[in-house]
């Protein structure tokens, strides 16, 4: 997908995660495929309810199988996880793949010290005594930039500030040297100066360990900072994916245009109005027929034959743009024209 040469570490094919509810079947994730290579970062972008977090929890095997209907394939380093023995997945979770959550205050146990929680995470996967594990915890807290780690290791989560807690959670996720790190909105709860520190930390750690990283966010700025490849989700499906540079400079899906147009820019004076997407995201119980984006799409009436309202567009390669795919019924030439003539000049 990008110029990175690492081998594919995680491969997801046609992943579907549906939930039975009293109101009907919620299709949170409805057929999504992507690859993440070692040493590269995939950014998954979307609004609330687009299925980004459900996807990541699905990869981690954290959905209760009694509630969720999961199908498709998830290959982690060549090993199939969907339908695998839960004990096997539990062994992999933490050691080969780890996750950083949005809200460290609720992701950490308030009753145990930060050190105890890191020690526990380490000893689950390593047969070592407490003292060795504690040394490892201090070492990691130091690595993620917590001052006086040998003292702070005995503090409780509430004694840490928001940024510190996020660092501690990163330390916990990294304690077993995972090769895949999933960060779900890792900086959303943080102030910008602290966000900058955490993003730098994630970038440095990735360089150091050469791990594969998935970063899930609603903030296009954050993915532009970190991601090599980007996947845009809408109503449980991928509408566009490709190298970060392509997604930002020549996006080929009306929803991506809408996201870019909705965003006030800090890097330039923009006195004109923003160009928002009209309406609001659909309910996942009643996803619109055809292209899920059609009720909000300003170009829904353009394709011949009214395909947008009857047939779901498939993800197809953008001609002449390596690794760039989009799912839209509009002809490629037409989309190229709309982007260059109508959208790009106004951004």
């Amino acid at each position: 997908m990008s110029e990175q040469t690492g081998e594919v570490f995680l491969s997801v094919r046609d992943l579907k995660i549906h939930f039975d509810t009293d109101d009907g079947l919620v299709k949170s994730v409805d057929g999504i495929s992507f690859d993440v290579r070692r040493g590269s970062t995939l950014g998954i972008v979307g609004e609330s309810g687009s299925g980004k977090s459900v996807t990541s929890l699905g990869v981690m095997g954290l959905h209760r199988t009694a509630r969720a209907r999961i199908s498709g394939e998830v290959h982690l380093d060549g090993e199939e996880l969907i339908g695998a023995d839960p004990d096997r997945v539990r062994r992999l979770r933490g050691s080969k793949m780890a996750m950083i959550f949005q809200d460290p205050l609720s992701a950490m146990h308030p009753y145990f010290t930060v050190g105890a929680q890191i020690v526990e995470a380490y000893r689950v996967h390593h047969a070592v005594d407490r003292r060795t594990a504690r040394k490892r915890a201090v070492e990691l807290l130091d690595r993620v930039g917590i001052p006086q780690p040998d003292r702070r290791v005995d503090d409780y989560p509430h004694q840490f500030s928001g940024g510190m807690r996020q660092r501690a959670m990163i330390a916990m996720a990294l304690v077993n040297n995972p090769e895949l790190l999933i960060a779900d909105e890792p900086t959303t709860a943080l102030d910008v100066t602290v966000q900058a520190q955490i993003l730098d930390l994630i970038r440095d750690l990735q360089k150091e360990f050469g791990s594969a990283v998935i970063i899930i966010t609603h903030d296009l700025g954050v993915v532009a900072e970190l991601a090599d490849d980007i996947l845009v989700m809408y109503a449980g499906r991928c509408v566009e994916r490709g190298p970060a540079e392509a997604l930002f400079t020549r996006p080929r899906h009306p929803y991506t245009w809408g996201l870019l147009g909705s965003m006030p820019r800090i890097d330039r004076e923009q006195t004109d109005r923003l160009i928002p997407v009209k309406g609001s995201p659909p309910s996942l119980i009643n996803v619109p027929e055809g292209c899920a984006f059609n009720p909000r799409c300003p170009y829904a009436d353009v394709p011949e034959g009214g395909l947008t309202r009857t047939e779901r567009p498939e993800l197809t390669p953008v001609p002449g743009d390596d690794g760039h795919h989009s799912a839209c019924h509009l002809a490629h030439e037409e989309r190229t024209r709309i982007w260059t003539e109508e959208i790009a000049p106004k951004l």
Partner: protein
Amino acid sequence: MTNPGPPEALLTVEGLVKHFPITKGVLRRQVGAVQAVDGLTFDVRTGETLGVVGESGCGKSTMGRLITRLLEPTAGRIEFEGRDITHLGVSGMRPMRRDVQMIFQDPYSSLNPRHTVGTIVGAPFRLQGIAPEGGVKKEVQGLLELVGLSPEHYNRYPHEFSGGQRQRIGIARALALKPKLVVADEPVSALDVSIQAQVVNLLDDLQDELGLTYVIIAHDLSVIRHVSDRIAVMYLGKLVELTDRTSLYTAPAHPYTKALLSAVPVPDPRRRTQRKRILLNGDVPSPISPPSGCRFRTRCWKSAEVCSEQEPPLLELRTGHQVACHFPE
């Protein structure tokens, strides 16, 4: 959005202070104070949008609640249209409430779930004892249309609406009495990107249409850049910089402003490698015992001896560009 003619102050704030006491024991003896807002001086000009930006705990929301008099100031003076409103009581403030309204951050908790949209948006008329021409219902339906909702939504309840629509209801309520000043505390931060843009545009249009003056409080520097004419940057209860939008973003003078701006991720992957980012160390100190002298000195790379001894006053560096720093750029 700029105001023709000489800028005239609608709201003047001088030396505004708010300390929340920390008490201990059964006698509730005061053992300290959270110095949430500690000496703010600025004015808000008729027709402009003043953006107030800062990180959590800098006192920006407390400031918003002080100028709308939802909180009682510890010291200082607030004047609205030349009239001192600093210590007006509830009944004294009531006539002023027509002119000063607030939009809140959380569209879920700021609307009463048991009231219909009609009751919510019509409440200001009842509270102020105003009978609009054609009746309250007609007026409320007009307001709903103004903010982009349908008049048929009159009898619905808040839970039937999405976050963006609820925020529109909150805006309709704030605009019901045709206020002069609207204070919006994080009006879009709870909304999704595409909805955020709709609400930002709506606020823009309403300002043009109704000649409103805004004070918009937000932590998102991109949103602030888009909506504001002038911008005030706060740090730990103090104003550190106050200037117009263009100079703030192109020539920030305070080290904190520079660091803040450099920390914002730019949605352009090509710039990733070229950018120089100023990384601040550590976190914001506690407002219970802020550092002596300049409050930013503990995280500042320019910090010298004078910074810990003397508090830098907010001075005019260039025309219309105020900075509180011993070593401005």
